[in-house]
């Protein structure tokens, strides 16, 4: 192999390798990105910020950060809050966890994927604490629940008590441990041959609210697994129910409520009134009553509703904090308001958990009647404006038909979401309908007190025909038109250049062949003529031939001059015309007069070339047929047009009409090509005048105007 070839191959290989490395780097980054599990959230923002900014994504539930803990305050079955990467494989998730209500469970989902809103709508594992049967449970969800283990927790699971829950996923072994505040450890283990190998992690609660704090995710090693396995005592293993006994057993307590337990603890007032009946009580007397209802809002105050209506309970006294969805008994003093009642000094007691009330779908007009005051409703409207309320809250103003209403979000996550909505969007909003003036601000008939991110849904983006979009559209169309125009002009210009070059080539060919042949022929004929006897017919014929050849030679030179436009672009039209005229008239007795009026300026090549050609033709015709003494060229630059006039004082001709010569037809044809007007005036003994007037394109005019303004020339026009 030759040395140069070898060097070339070596260089090519080096460059190729470098290119490959450069191309592979982003790919490698994409593949390896987010592979290492590493996460910590102490929820220190105390209600500020948005869940999504921290990577959390909710699927059901009502999530908010309170006092350094992430809370789901709803009793939704299977509410999830997901974070992390789908590429995470071996990792440990741990946090402190607390069940806020009874008859449910809460914990972690690990190695999850394809999460959706739904009871068990994900692929992944769950490990958590369940208070129905006081167990640490582990299982797998594949859009359906399969429980592998439920390990009894010594001393039971208590609501409003912190437990430390740790879940390890390593290979196909999943291990969970819970630790009470007194240090009692319970562990559960599952090993599944066909396990899910990777996935995100998340928080999940089922039929109860729950709180998580100090959520930490870190990579898991074999040593972590061994350490957790060693901590798993024999007694715990014995207490663990076998995995095979749990699935398929219909006595699985997961599907039943702890009826007897709840009944023992929550006897209710049998004389409770319906909320609608409170409206029938005497408005002037203070009555203490009991009502039953489902909690629909807990902040800024508690709202409950039953099948007959809703009621607000400001400053409620609650033994056990209640959550949205709890069925409660409220006892207090009734105060009649305009459209609904309010319960003052009320004690609120939990009766049952997880019976969330669905929203009533109403139109804004229906809500504006006050018939749904204090009730959980769903309505639609178009976002008109947005403003900040007190603290972190956001207040939306919406229009729907003839009604306007407000939507108020105090939940920071919801407020952050609402801040991103575009004006003009059509929204479906859920919340407590309140007609109280303190919320509706005496401007609107009602306001919606919204609860969570799920209460706002955009059902239609803003219409595209807003002012900004229309301006953008017009600007875009103008831009495209201008671009197309420029492209068209560029193509035309190229075509013209090609034609001019071809003419140049033809002229050179003619010069090198025809003109030189004429010169040689003339020389030969003159030689023959000089040798012929003086006065002989031959000499006369030869001299006549010499004249003919001379005339032919002149014609050829003139045509060559006509074909060669010279540097029209460089010299400009007036100089090119003058030069062409002088070439044509060279050696003759004709006097040339040149005049220019107006401000000479660049004009499109197509127009300049056409004027040039017409001018040449007119001069040539005058010389050939008119025998003039003087030819005058006049070029007038108008504001929107340019006019060329070629006038001679020759013998003129009578108008031939349709039978005009080839030269005149050619001039007309050229003038038509640029939409110019051609006027030829001639009379016998009074010479001929050829005038051509062409309109200038707008862009040239604009430029000219701009130059005129810039140079101050406009002052001259004003002063005539």
């Amino acid at each position, binding site marked *: 192999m030759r040395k140069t070839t070898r060097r070339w191959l070596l260089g090519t290989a080096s460059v190729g390798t470098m290119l490959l490395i450069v191309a592979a780097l982003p790919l490698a980054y994409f593949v390896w990105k987010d592979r290492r599990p590493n996460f910590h959230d102490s929820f220190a923002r105390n209600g500020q910020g948005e869940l999504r900014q921290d990577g959390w994504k909710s699927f059901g539930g009502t999530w908010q950060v309170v006092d350094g803990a992430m809370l789901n305050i709803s009793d939704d079955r299977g509410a999830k809050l997901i974070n992390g990467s789908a590429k995470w494989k071996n990792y440990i998730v741990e946090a402190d966890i607390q069940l806020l209500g009874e008859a449910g469970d809460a914990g972690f989902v690990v190695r999850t994927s394809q999460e959706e809103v739904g009871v068990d709508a994900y692929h992944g594992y769950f490990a958590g604490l369940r208070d129905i049967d006081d167990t640490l449970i582990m299982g797998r969800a594949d859009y359906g629940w399969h429980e592998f283990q439920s390990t009894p927790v010594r001393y039971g699971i208590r609501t409003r008590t912190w437990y430390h829950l740790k879940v390890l996923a390593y290979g196909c072994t999943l291990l969970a441990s819970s630790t009470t505040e007194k240090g009692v450890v319970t562990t559960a283990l599952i090993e599944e041959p066909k396990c899910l190998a990777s996935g995100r992690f998340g928080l999940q609660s089922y039929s109860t609210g729950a709180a998580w704090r100090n959520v930490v995710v870190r990579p898991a090693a074999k040593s972590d697994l061994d350490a957790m396995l060693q901590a798993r005592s024999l007694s715990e293993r014995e207490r663990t129910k076998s995995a095979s006994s749990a699935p398929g057993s219909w006595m699985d307590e997961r599907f039943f409520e702890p009826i007897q337990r709840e009944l023992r603890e929550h006897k209710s007032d049998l004389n409770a009134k319906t909320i609608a009946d409170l409206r029938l009580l005497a408005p002037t007397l203070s009555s203490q009553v009991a009502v039953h209802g489902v909690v629909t809002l807990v902040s800024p105050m508690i709202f409950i509703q039953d099948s007959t209506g809703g009621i607000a309970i400001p400053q409620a006294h609650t033994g056990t904090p209640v959550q949205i969805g709890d*069925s409660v008994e409220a006892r207090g003093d009734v105060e009649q308001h305009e459209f609904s009642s309010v319960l003052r000094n009320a004690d609120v007691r939990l009766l049952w958990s997880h019976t969330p009330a669905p929203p009533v779908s109403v139109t804004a007009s229906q809500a504006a009647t006050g018939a749904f005051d204090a009730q959980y409703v769903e309505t639609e409207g178009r976002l008109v404006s947005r403003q900040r309320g007190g603290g972190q809250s956001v207040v939306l103003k919406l229009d729907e038909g003839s009604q306007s209403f407000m939507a108020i979000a105090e939940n920071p996550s919801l407020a952050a979401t609402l801040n991103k909505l575009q004006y003009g969007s059509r929204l479906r909003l859920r919340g407590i309908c309140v007609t109280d003036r303190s919320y509706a601000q005496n401007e609107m008939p009602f306001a919606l007190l919204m609860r969570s991110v799920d209460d706002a849904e955009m059902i239609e983006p803003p219409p595209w025909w807003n002012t900004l979009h229309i301006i953008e559209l017009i600007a875009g169309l103008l831009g495209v038109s201008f671009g197309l125009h420029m492209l068209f002009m560029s193509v035309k210009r190229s075509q013209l250049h090609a034609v001019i070059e071809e003419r140049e080539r033809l002229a050179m060919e003619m010069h090198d062949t025809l003109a030189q042949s004429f010169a040689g022929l003339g020389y030969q004929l003159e030689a023959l003529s000089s040798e012929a006897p003086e006065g002989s017919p031959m000499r006369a014929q030869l001299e006549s031939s010499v004249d003919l050849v001379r005339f032919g030679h002149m014609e050829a030179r003139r045509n060559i001059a006509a074909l060669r436009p010279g540097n029209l672009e460089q010299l400009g039209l007036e100089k090119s015309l003058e030069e062409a005229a002088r070439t044509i008239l060279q050696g003759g007795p004709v006097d040339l007069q040149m005049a220019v009026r107006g401000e000479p300026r660049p004009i499109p090549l197509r127009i300049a070339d056409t004027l040039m050609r017409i001018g040449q033709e007119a001069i040539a015709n005058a010389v050939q047929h008119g025998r003039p003494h003087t030819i005058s060229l006049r070029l007038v630059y108008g504001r929107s047009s340019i006019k060329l006039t070629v006038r001679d004082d020759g013998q003129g001709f009578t108008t031939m009409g349709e039978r005009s010569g080839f030269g005149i037809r050619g001039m007309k044809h050229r003038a038509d090509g640029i939409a110019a007007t051609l006027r030829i005036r001639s009379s016998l003994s009074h010479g001929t005048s050829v005038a051509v007037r062409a309109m200038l394109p707008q862009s040239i005019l604009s430029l000219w105007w701009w130059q005129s303004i810039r140079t101050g020339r406009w002052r001259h026009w004003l002063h005539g």
Partner: protein
Amino acid sequence: MRRRVLTRALVKKAWWLWGGVAGVLCILAAVAALYPRRVPTIAVIPRTCGTYLWEAEHTGVERVAPRYGLSVYWNAPMREDDVQGQIAILDRELKRKVQGVILSPVEALPLRTSVYRALQGGTPVVVVGTDLGLAPAKNLAYVLNDERRGGQLAARRIGLVLGGKGTVAIVGISNQLTSTADRARSLEATLSEEFPQIHVAYRSLALPTVSQEQQVAEKMLAENAGINAIVALTETSTRGAFYALTEFNKAGVIHLVGFDQNMMVPIRTGGLDAVIMQNTNQMGQAAMTLMGEELHGGAKHGYVVLQPLLVTRENLDSSDVNEILNLAWFNP
């Protein structure tokens, strides 16, 4: 000749171009070969998930789906009364181009449009549990519980426990589902025909939540002292009535016959006399069989009607009940 030479030169000089094209084609072929073929998916959307009534259907559909080479997408609203949630899931799955839908409508009328659109789009639908009002046709079949039989079973149980004489309250009457309306009609018809001395003294409409049902039952108990038995026509009203009876210390004193199997423990512990179970496991199997046959071109359109089962303390542990409540759907 000149053209041929030019062509050869082009081919020779552009070898890298042809090589690149060939390489890309090879890569595409390899990816296509390695890419796993998607198993046809059937969206099974019950009224809700995670309850005995509907998880049994999950077991049923999962049992049959592999026979037809189908996979199951199983999801539903978190609440049994969430009509909009169910419509949203159905519409989303239709957009995902599932091969078929097995649907148990939360309510008949609001779901009719979505089902009609699915049928118009060529997606086969099997409706489970209630008649939507759309006539069975190509791509549409029904798997129903024999509600008439359920009403008869409840009436005869009431007749038996009351000795053919007494006063009854019927709670949970719903017109949103034809199935529940059929239950009520059949119950009253059987009572009047076979037990003329049993009178229906109170009727109440179905409500969406247990607490509301409980409230209605409490009011009924407070105002109707002579009630001897309650028939609750829905799962929610069964719970509400049971809670109310327990609060009034009337559990076991006033007989309660409920429908749908989400509350079975009180049958054993007392307070709930009987439950009329839907065989949702068999309904799931029948629905998936119809779907599989539809997709394989051999469908029988129309109605498949399955018999309900009366569950009392006597047959609570029988194999029939255990089979219906089998939740071993999981197939890792």
